[in-house]
């Protein structure tokens, strides 16, 4: 029997961790709603499980999403994730090949170099030794990068890194110790008994030349086991809880459990799945423009997890989705934030009964300008012209006494009240008998799609204009205007509409590519979701965003949202700010 007392710290840590994790996850999953549990059972044995496995490989191990932020950063995370994983898997295979029994104890593979007498060869033992050394080298290189990142984060593509708690720094130290200690233990063993490959073997000989490796190797295995044990014991209370949680979350996500508007068990999974990598920090314009450094998702989630006061952070978010878009763990950061916003409106049977049921003329196409659209009459006029040019008969739903779509309320947590407004608007839209609903406002667009359950085609006007052009109903002529497109948060990131605006702009102008194209667009600062910052702060944020776009020297800055347009128009600039519909109408 391969056994030595030094494996005890490792085994104790591992067993306690496993028990803790199983108990915790089972408890959370049990608190899922009946519907969610049903969904899980339905999807468990399906292709979705395979998809989840693939995602775990790509995200939890390879960390391929982080490569988007920076290849170095991606490599660093991959070294840890994939490296450690391979170390375990290859080590396990190695031990199996050697031992030929499937049921060797778990510590056997981990401490293989200790138990395996170096002179005893087995099939491919050299290959395994080489592989194990290579993997260890990979992890150590990642470790070096991580060290480097602590010192010079900017070089790894991060302007700011996460501020951690002292406890997290402790466990970070423990984590960082694991691999150097393993390296030393294996090297010392190799130095005294032989074995290992290019890395540990060479290092062993090197150490043997001036150290009493014979007497050092056994204590070093103790240290290695202890460090691992401590790490396992501390893990549930540290940010490294994300390692197991993320994997479970990926399964749950793939099996169809969704983050709703309430803070539920799936929210808890997300809370613990956040690795605090800090990639969201640089994305947040509240940080870059206003110097607010406590409201980014990494800190917000941290505060929730550690029961600190986060009342201000609940409100202080633009919900632009830039963080969510960049999050390597794919957490629903906006919804998590929303789940903390309380519903303050009191609903009675009289709530909003004052909203009249409007009589809407019937037509195949219905147009909804949105509240903000009425403050930008230029957009409405342009849409009217385009409808006319394309010969489309349409009905203007909110021409008179239009009401809010309800999304601003939802964004503030007031779902109950919003549902009444939604119902009223929905009736109006259905009464129009339309087959296509065109809206100028990306905010309305999102609600129509997500909350209205309308059985008709919902289009933002950029999509619609693109369709009219491709159908040959509009014939815009290309102009020489250099345009930069500001894709509104709700349109590009929120609904993935990135192609249509570009097609339209290419047809009427010469769009200038920017690093803010598509889903990487900035927030204009007008967001209704932020309930905290002052008008002055908003102005500053939008001024920064505007200047970022204007640095490409366009003739016109084009957007597709009345609110963005109004927000950008606050300051006097020589470059006009226009809606995409206006640009098309001018060039038709």
């Amino acid at each position, binding site marked *: 029997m391969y056994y030595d007392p030094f494996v005890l710290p490792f085994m104790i840590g591992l067993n306690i961790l496993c028990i803790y994790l199983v108990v915790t996850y089972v408890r959370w999953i049990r608190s899922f709603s009946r519907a969610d549990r049903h969904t899980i059972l339905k999807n468990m044995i399906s292709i979705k499980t395979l998809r989840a496995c693939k995602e775990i490989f790509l995200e939890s191990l390879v960390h391929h999403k982080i490569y988007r932020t920076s290849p170095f950063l991606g490599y660093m995370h991959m070294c840890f994730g994939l490296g450690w994983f391979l170390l375990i898997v290859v080590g396990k295979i190695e031990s199996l090949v050697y031992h030929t029994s499937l049921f060797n104890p778990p510590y056997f593979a981990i401490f293989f170099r200790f138990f395996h007498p170096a002179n005893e060869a087995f099939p491919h033992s050299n290959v395994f030794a080489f592989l194990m050394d290579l993997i260890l080298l990979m992890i150590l290189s990642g470790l070096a990068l991580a060290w480097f990142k602590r010192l010079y984060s900017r070089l790894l593509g991060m302007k700011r890194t996460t501020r951690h708690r002292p406890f997290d720094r402790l466990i970070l130290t423990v984590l960082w110790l694991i691999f150097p200690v393993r390296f030393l233990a294996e090297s010392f063993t190799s130095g005294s008994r032989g074995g290992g490959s290019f890395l540990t073997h060479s290092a062993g000989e090197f150490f043997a030349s001036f150290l009493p490796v014979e007497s050092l190797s056994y204590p070093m295995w103790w240290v290695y086991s202890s460090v691992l044990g401590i790490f396992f014991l501390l893990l549930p209370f540290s940010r490294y809880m994300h390692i197991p949680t993320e994997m479970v979350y990926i399964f749950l996500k793939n099996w169809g459990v969704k983050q709703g508007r309430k803070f539920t068990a799936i929210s808890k999974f997300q809370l613990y799945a956040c690795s605090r990598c800090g990639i969201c920090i640089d994305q947040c314009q509240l940080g870059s423009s206003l110097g607010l450094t406590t409201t980014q998702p990494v800190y917000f989630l941290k505060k929730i997890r550690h029961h600190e006061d986060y009342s201000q952070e609940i409100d202080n978010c633009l919900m632009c989705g830039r963080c969510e878009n960049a999050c390597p763990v794919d957490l629903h950061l906006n919804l998590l934030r929303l789940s903390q916003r309380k519903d303050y409106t009191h609903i009675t049977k009289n709530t909003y009964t004052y909203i009249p049921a409007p009589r809407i003329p019937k037509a195949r196409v219905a147009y909804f300008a949105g509240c903000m659209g*009425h*403050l*930008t*009459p*230029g957009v409405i*006029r342009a849409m009217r012209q385009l409808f006319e040019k394309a010969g489309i008969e349409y009905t203007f739903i909110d021409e008179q006494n239009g009401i809010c779509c309800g999304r601003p309320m939802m964004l503030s947590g007031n779902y109950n009240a919003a549902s009444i407004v939604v119902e009223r608007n929905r009736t109006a839209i259905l009464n129009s008998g339309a087959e296509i609903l065109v809206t100028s406002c990306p905010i309305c667009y999102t609600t129509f799609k997500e909350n209205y359950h309308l059985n008709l085609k919902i289009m933002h006007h950029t999509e619609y204009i693109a369709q009219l052009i491709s159908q040959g109903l509009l014939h815009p002529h290309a102009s020489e205007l250099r345009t930069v497109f500001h894709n509104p948060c709700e349109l590009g990131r929120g609904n993935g509409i990135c192609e249509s605006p570009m097609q339209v702009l290419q047809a009427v102008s010469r769009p200038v590519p920017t690093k803010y194209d598509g889903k990487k667009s900035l927030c204009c600062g007008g967001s209704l979701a932020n309930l905290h910052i002052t*008008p002055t702060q908003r*102005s500053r944020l939008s001024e920064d965003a505007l200047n970022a776009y204007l640095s490409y020297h366009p003739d016109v800055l084009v957007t597709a949202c009345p609110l963005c*347009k*109004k927000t950008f*128009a*606050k*300051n*006097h600039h020589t470059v006009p700010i226009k809606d995409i519909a206006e640009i098309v109408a001018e060039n038709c």
Partner: protein
Amino acid sequence: MNPMNVIIIGAGTAGCEAAYRLAKAGFTVELVEKECTPGGNLNNWFQLFPDRKQASALRQLLQQQVEHPSIRLHTDTVPVKIERQDARHYAMELDNGARLEGNALLVTTGFRTFDASRKEEYGYGIYENVITSVELENYFANRQILTSTGKRPERIGLIQCVGSRDEKMCNFHCSKVCCITAVKQAMELRELLPDAEILCFYMDMRMFGPGYEEMYREAQEKYNIKFVRGRLSEASENQAKQVVVKCEDTLVGKPMRMTLDLMVLMVGMEASDGSRWVAKELQLPLAPNGFIQPGDPHYATNRTAVEGVFVAGCATSPMNLTDTLTDARSAALAIGEFLNGNEHYN
């Protein structure tokens, strides 16, 4: 000894008046104007408040004055470079190639009116029957007020504080003269359109000058101008091309909707492009509202932070004509003292 020479940028009201006073005091003046004729914003005005005098009379007077033999008028040109050798020596290059030299510099670059199309919800440039107060003066000059559809307007609304006192336009200042301009224009409208309904939409009526409050009373009492205390929030256009406006009648406490045949936006004042250019060229500090900051708000209103560079009129802040003329004369006095070396205060 050659007489001392003063360069004045901008031959508007302040520039012309200061030039004439300086010339009379024995200085020679180089007066630079970007337009073909002197007069500045006064050229756009038909009648003056509070006495309803023809603006042309004052304009002619100013134009006659600048024909003084000691004044050299350079029209249709703008400076491209200003060099300050020391406090008493300036050289200026004009875009027509001329080079002027002077011993003091007076900045009378005036103001520009707010670009009403920035206030998109009011629909200027989008709706046909939305005009600015400047355009209305033109209508008065032609003695004819018609809507875009060629009708005599039956209801006209004058909207105060367009581009002034508006955080949303980043203009926090009050343009001072728009209130009284609206009263004056409402009265002129009444004379041309005896049967029309004329309404002023205001946040505050600021009748600061002599005779202004009396004029306000007269507009209410004799001219039957209606005053609505409420700020316009948005406008839209109906099929008849009329403007449908929304405001709250705050004194009633209810939102109000109203159809106007013609809507006049009382555009406010902003620092002119010329002021901004000169300030940049000479590193003159600007006040938060974008106008040139005078040396001291009380006793050095015509000085700037740069010795030898003076400022007068609406380049420093919104002013009415009376104050502009007074300020110009005060500047002439200050420059005279500066050049003669007998300043009473620093």
